[in-house]
């Protein structure tokens, strides 16, 4: 079955949020059983649960708006990589614990600002999802920020790794704040917020944590993008091969 990309800006906006949450949640779930210590193993999988729960609420809403009979599972399991709208940042590999923390820190700080703005949406359902998510994001922000500081201002080894994680992923942070025509159309319908003005607040928050962590803020240079439009890094295909295997091999399988 073909999977057309929706032209409804409201649905694309919901999928951008949902795909970020699902793919990042899946990445974090890969840590299950591999965390550096038990408490952090549990913490990362807790984050994964929150993110996947958020994705479910958003997919369900997108499916209802679309009215084509697609449920949360369809969006997660039946689309190919070119129809995923997540930012490139969230599909990047876990790397070591420090790189996972860097990715989480960049995303959490963005998500906190974005979902906070989204609670003002005139669309009651989306505002409710945002308000619910924000309570959880506040916990995530604290977790990832504390770890950036602990690893950055830690041993030589942890500092080297934390700096490497920050440097490695910096080029993917610009896309979080880039806006296109679909975003602008979604803003008019109350389904997105203007992310560009949030970039300053994000920089301020990130700079403060990096400074406390005695880490060096990377130079702003070329930024990778394309995820929002379905142009992904090679990593997403491997994620989907794992995530979608069962539904691809046994379509409509249920428990």
């Amino acid at each position, binding site marked *: 079955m073909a999977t057309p990309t929706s032209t409804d800006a409201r649905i694309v906006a919901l999928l951008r949020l949902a795909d970020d949450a699902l793919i990042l949640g899946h990445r974090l779930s890969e840590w299950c059983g591999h965390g550096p210590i038990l408490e952090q193993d*549990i913490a990362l999988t807790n984050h994964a*649960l929150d993110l996947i*729960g958020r994705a479910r609420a958003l997919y369900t809403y997108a499916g209802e708006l679309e009215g084509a009979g697609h449920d949360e599972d369809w969006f997660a399991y039946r689309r190919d990589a070119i129809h995923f709208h997540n930012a490139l940042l969230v599909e990047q590999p876990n790397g070591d614990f420090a790189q996972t923390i860097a990715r989480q820190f960049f995303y959490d700080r963005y998500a906190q600002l974005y979902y906070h703005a989204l609670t003002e949406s005139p669309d009651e359902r989306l505002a409710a999802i945002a308000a619910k998510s924000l309570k959880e994001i506040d916990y995530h922000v604290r977790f990832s920020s504390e770890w950036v500081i602990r690893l950055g201002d830690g041993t030589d080894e942890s500092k080297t790794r934390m700096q490497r994680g920050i440097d490695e992923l910096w080029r993917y942070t610009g896309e979080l704040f880039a806006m296109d025509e679909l975003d602008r159309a979604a803003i008019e319908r109350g389904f997105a917020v203007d992310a560009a003005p949030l970039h300053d607040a994000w920089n301020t928050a990130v700079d403060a944590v990096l400074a406390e962590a005695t880490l060096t803020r990377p130079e702003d240079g070329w930024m990778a993008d394309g995820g929002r439009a379905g142009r992904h890094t090679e990593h997403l295909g491997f994620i989907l091969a794992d995530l979608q295997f069962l539904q691809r091999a046994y379509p409509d399988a249920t428990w």
Partner: protein
Amino acid sequence: MGDPRIAAVRAVLDGVPDPEIPVVTVVDLGIVRDIRFDGDRLVVTITPTYTGCPATKVIEDAIRDALTDAGYTDFAVETTLSPPWTTDWLSERGREKLREFGIAPPVGSAATKRALFGDAPTVPCPRCRSEQTTCVSEFGSTPCKAHYRCDACGEPFDYFKCL
């Protein structure tokens, strides 16, 4: 409040334990947000504690089973996210039952946000009541709990965190 039909439904739901923390009921937890009759049709509205709580579906099924067992045939269980669930909705009875079970109930009100921004609350040990406790991890055995340790009696315990 005056409708005896609603009181009867509430009594049924108050017999439905939380699947993760069976000492408290779904009513104690504040998950049941509304009970109403549209004509003869019963509508129960529930809200999830955390968006990713794996127990949400189990709770919904348990409520259906309890209503069916109690003889209700024409009913619907709906889910709402708004207003978002808060630990402020935990009943006093629920808090006491958590403590007896060995889980420290949430301290203070979520509305103040003090639990979220560095100003960590003092969480008394549910065993010995000592206030000399340490947060081991804010992410515990379920999404709703943090992991603590009592520095006085050495007991590790769960803290039902403020949300």
